[in-house]
């Protein structure tokens, strides 16, 4: 029997992502947000999560994916990181899946730029690939800030 892990899954663009369930605090529908002027553009705003102020990160922008189309309202996947709680904005929420470590493979070289640094690897599921997102890295924006300054 190989080891099993549970992943909370979601969809972004046409990609299928997963975050280890242990890192997920909760999943909530779209919330009103307060914009933060001058903030890095991946920061969509601040949400009031029962009295706690949580930074919402647009995962599409963070991964360098095309902008969300139309009036589709993103969902919040609230994750815990060592730097506190962060909300990741995603297109659509999927099921919680149990995956097998045996199906894991390191991220293929072909995954493009920003995404590759944030994906620890892929799980080869039946019919589709699940990209395992590195929550810690996703919440760190220092690199982006530096990059923006350079431009």
């Amino acid at each position, binding site marked *: 029997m190989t080891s099993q892990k549970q992943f909370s899954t979601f969809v972004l663009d046409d990609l299928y992502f997963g975050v280890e369930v242990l890192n997920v605090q909760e999943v909530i529908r779209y919330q009103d947000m*307060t914009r933060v*002027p001058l903030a890095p553009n991946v920061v969509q705003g601040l949400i009031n999560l029962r009295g706690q102020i949580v930074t919402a990160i647009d995962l599409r922008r963070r991964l360098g994916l095309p902008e969300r189309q139309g009036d589709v309202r993103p969902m919040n996947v609230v994750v815990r990181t060592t730097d506190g709680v962060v909300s990741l904005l995603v297109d659509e929420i999927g099921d919680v899946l149990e995956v097998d470590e045996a199906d894991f493979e390191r991220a293929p070289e072909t995954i493009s730029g920003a995404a590759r640094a944030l994906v620890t690897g892929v799980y080869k599921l039946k019919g589709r690939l699940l990209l395992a997102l590195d929550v810690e890295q996703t919440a760190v924006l220092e690199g982006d800030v530096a990059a923006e300054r350079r431009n």
Partner: protein
Amino acid sequence: MQPLDDVVKEFLVESHENLDRLDRELVELEQDPHDRENLASIFRTIHTLKGTCGFLGFSRLEAISHVGENLLSRMRDGLLVLDTAITTGLLEMVDAIRQILAAVESTGAENETDYSALVARLNELNSGGVMPAPKAAPEPSAVADAPHDTVVAPAAVKSHPDVAETVEHRGPDDRPVAGREDRRPGVADTTLRVDVGQLDKLMNLVGELVLARNQIIQFTATQTDNAFVGATQRLNLVTSELQEGVMKTRMQPIDNVWSKFPRVVRDLATTCGKQVRLEMVGKDTELDKTIIEAIKDPLTHVVRNSVDHGIEPPDVRVARGKPAEGVVHLRAFHEGGQINIEITDDGAGIDPEKVRRKAVDRAMVTAEQAARMSDHDVLRLIFMPGFSTAEAITNVSGRGVGMDVVRTNIERIGGTVDILSTVGEGSTLKIRIPLTLAIIPALMVATGGEVFAIPQVNLLELVRLEGEQARTGIERIGNATFHRLRGNLLPLVPLAKELGLTSQCDPSVVNIVVLKADDRQFGLMVDGVNDTEEIVVKPLGKQLKSVQVFAGATIMGDGHVALILDVNRIAQQARVFGVGERSAKSTDSAAAKQGPADTQTWLLFRGGGADRLAIPLKLVARLEEFATADIERSGGHEVVQYRGEIMPLINLGRFLGGDDVTPADPRQVIVFSDKGHSAGLVVEQILDIVSQSISVTRSNSRAGVLGSAVIQQRVTDLLDVAAIVRHAVPEFQADSAA
């Protein structure tokens, strides 16, 4: 290591408190060796400690405190008089006990350090061996006791175990007699030890409650049910009182930090061979526990500095006609919702010239900048990193990491530091810090469709301009805008522009929030001013660390998140006061080392045949336009009627010997004002206002020009305003001199 017994834990906590008190009391006793009550209290403390040690089986502790107790008992019986040697011995004993206790705390057992030397020395002191009478002689009170002492001493040495014995028995009996002891059972009955973590949790909960209350109040505004409205009002009141109450539990007198200073000062003074008296006023001033923690180190540093660098050695002081004993004076008081702490010494003071030289040596400023800076601004350079004026690096201070750390620590909790000093008379360091950090009153303003909170501490006043005023009240010079607030030019900062938002403001109304940053004023233009609210400051996530203009965020009554503006940062970002030291941090090191004092704000203009001229903005009273038709002549001068008086106009072109350009209509005039007299300088065009530090190349070849400098990468002549006005309008100077 086994977990500590509850009894031992209790003992440790109690002993630490007792030892802190011992430190203080011993130093007090040294100053007044005949304070019997104090002596009795010290004796009791040591006695209790010794007793508990024996009970808990800490034999080494018991042995050490026993020797101390013997010494104290003889003093109490009037057989010995406390002097410096004994005090030092006893203080060392307190330190030794502390060390052992620390070992007990971490390992559960006493440490193995050898304290026999200390014990021997204390015994020696006890037998009076190293306490010759002459040493105590300088103190008049000691002289009286000295003969008595020498006579009794031999007998006392012999009987000393008995003395200790009897004293031990007598100890408990003393308790009801001493006034100090009387109070203690009362206090013990009514106080309670509470874990700080518990209080922090309570504080957070109260913060949440305040937010929920704000939300309910907002909701109530739409309700008509009387019972509900009544209940809300009660909730409102109770919440406010609860907030106040919980806040109070976290308040501690500043004495908690100060109580360590008498010992610090005494030890340091002894080491440096100085005589220093510490005075403390306002010990009871209370402030939040977190703030107490935050100011502990900076304050200690400043006090050490005062003794080490400030106070001169006794011989120097006497030579300067001061009393041999220096004074370090601590003062704390509340003012306007803030705590003020002043540390004053009557020492040598700081010589601005020395600071100037040092700053130039260390390439922190250029020689020209240093020469131009005011003495006060020069003094503030000591808060820059890597600065120390101590002649020699001593054990205590002078390593160049000091005042900048003090400043950083104080600023981290939203405070400010300033220094005043007079050479030969001493220095005063002024610290201002907020009362509490958790819940603060704030003004809510709207800009670009968003709501922002401005901490009330920064707020001075609100100005609203409507209709005609809105158009005329704001004056533009280049890109900069100003408002004349009671005759002074107030630099304006549009908040929307600073935050990259689009203002949604009705152009017929201008809202100016007058703010104070670094003791200077500026006006923040916002779209709308809402209400004041008690807000709970919450930190922003690490992802937003790069956005420095926000001090945090809060949740408003309607549940929305509002960002809290960091007024100082906004002022720096907008460069209202020139290149701030911190905003320049990330740029090249030379710029980073320029304090705000190096920079001046310059008014750039064209006129008198010169393309670029500059004068310091602070000399400018107003900028005006006059139609050519309004200009009259009087006594060979062009004059204009201005504010009920006749103001002479100065033709700059004629003065500088440039081409006489046909003046534009209307004419641009820079108005100078001095002691009720005004003079106007006619120029062709106002170019810009810049804040920049410049270095002047002197040139005496042209009258009316002080020299030239590079401003905005272009060579610019600096006008000698005083000379021009004096020359063109002699009566101006004559009148103002009169």
